[in-house]
């Protein structure tokens, strides 16, 4: 059974149809990439799934539960964590505190020592260990993306939703990052739904790829199938 399933999700903003009848499924333990040209509705789908707003119609099922229209905090407590395309760190809080916020809401009963240790662990996982006392606003964009990833991991999620975490990296760094996310998935037994604008990068990581175009699912398949599909090439070239 799929961990996350979207059934005929539609969303319109004041007459503009941002998503129409989107069907998709994410199997447990897989890395699924969500790709598509600018304005295809990737982030809108993310928001509709993660509870930032309610879809106009359709259902979202997570872990066997209907979570359609549930607020973001409820969805998070069920085990879904996300990052943001434009990063949203708690700017005036230290890096460690950023992750502690996630941890205390996941483990409200645990003592402070546990929370701090847990948060530190996530921070070193993304390579920000020596910045734990630095306020998040001092980080650069790449570091902020890492911090958000660590913060999402701080909620101990079943499903990690990443929104363009590779921005600003060079080819070698992209390669490292992809390795990192694969390792993460294996180590923490995660499922990953990953939006990426750059197609090439996710091809190395993902097991399945969902292609969105103009608010509709263009196709679903393995990376190999997707890169060779003329419709996908058309969608990207036509951009």
């Amino acid at each position: 059974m799929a961990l996350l399933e979207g059934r005929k999700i539609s969303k319109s903003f004041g007459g503009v149809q941002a998503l129409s009848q989107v069907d998709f499924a994410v199997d447990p333990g897989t890395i699924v990439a969500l790709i598509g040209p600018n304005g295809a509705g990737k982030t809108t789908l993310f928001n509709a799934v993660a509870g930032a707003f309610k879809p106009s119609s359709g259902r979202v099922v997570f872990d066997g539960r209907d979570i359609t229209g549930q607020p973001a905090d409820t969805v998070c407590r069920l085990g879904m964590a996300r990052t943001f395309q434009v990063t949203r760190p708690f700017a005036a809080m230290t890096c460690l505190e950023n992750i502690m916020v996630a941890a205390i809401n996941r483990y409200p009963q645990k003592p402070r020592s546990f929370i701090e240790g847990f948060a530190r662990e996530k921070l070193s996982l993304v390579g920000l260990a020596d910045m734990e006392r630095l306020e998040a606003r001092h980080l650069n964009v790449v570091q902020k993306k890492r911090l958000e990833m660590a913060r999402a991991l701080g909620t101990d999620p079943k499903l990690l939703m990443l929104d363009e975490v590779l921005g600003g990296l060079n080819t070698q760094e992209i390669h490292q990052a992809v390795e990192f996310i694969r390792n993460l998935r294996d180590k923490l037994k995660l499922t990953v739904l990953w939006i990426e604008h750059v197609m090439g990068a996710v091809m190395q990581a993902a097991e399945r790829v969902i292609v969105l175009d103009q608010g509709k699912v263009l196709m679903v398949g393995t990376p190999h199938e997707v890169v060779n599909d003329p419709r996908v090439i058309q969608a990207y070239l036509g951009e």
Partner: protein
Amino acid sequence: MTGKKALLISMLILAGMCVLPLGLGIYPQHVLIVSLFYVMMASSWNLLAGYTGQVSFGHAAMAGIGAYASGILAAKAGINPWIGICLGTVLAALIGLGLGALCLKMGGIYLSLTTLAFSQILHIIIVNEYDLTRGTMGLQVPSLMAEYDKLVYYYIMLAAAVLILSILYRMIHSNLGLNFRAVQNDELAAKSLGVRVLQVRVLAFTVASAMAGFAGGLYGHYLLLVTPEIPSLDLQFYVLAMTVIGGMGSFIGPIIGAFALNILAEKIRDYGEYHVLVFGLIALVVARFAPNGLLGLWKKFKPIKPIQAVKQKAFPTP
């Protein structure tokens, strides 16, 4: 600063505060008592504005609720002022809860407008129900002690301020405090991490309202006269200015702001009633150019701590 060092310093300050009024006359004692009232008001308002990012313009109104509730019970029904103060605190908390639940789901700006409207309604009610409140004439309320004594009042206010400050300190350094700050920094991100934003906001507003009610109740029984000046926008402005000038979002800022501004007010008074204008101008400049207040300025000009050098370091590979 480590926890132990902070505790030691605060103990020393507390000891200093205990002996401070002994060598002073009645007038400076009065100034200190009023300052302590403002410490409670500014610190609890700071919990809202500084830690959860909600600007309430009804904090003085909550103090008024406390003062009038306790004052009316004592003056009209002969109820012991201490019980009255407790009831006033509860009433302020309940009103805070109701107002918070009513408007916080619509966002922060609604809280600001609704609290402003609330303080106006309260003013109108107080003025109109003069049989009960004696309107602008002011309600005379009994003293907290049989023999009026400034020094005893000083210690009562000091104890109350220490109580409020220690509750605030514990709260800010608990999980709740982290949630508060997360909500202030980024509501959407906090929500995505499982923070119940509405609950957190309403809770902060309720707690802060209760504290204002408590401070107001004590203040009324110190002044012996409860007037609509307690729940007024003027008093609200003092509290806001003290917090902004001292340093919003820091624990010590509002305390310093309260003492500094109240003592300054007494000093300026000799030259006429200009202190509100002077405060306003200072607060405007500070809020515009030093959003973290005087405390923030001081921190800014301290020698850079090594941790800040990290900023320049390249991002390590994973």
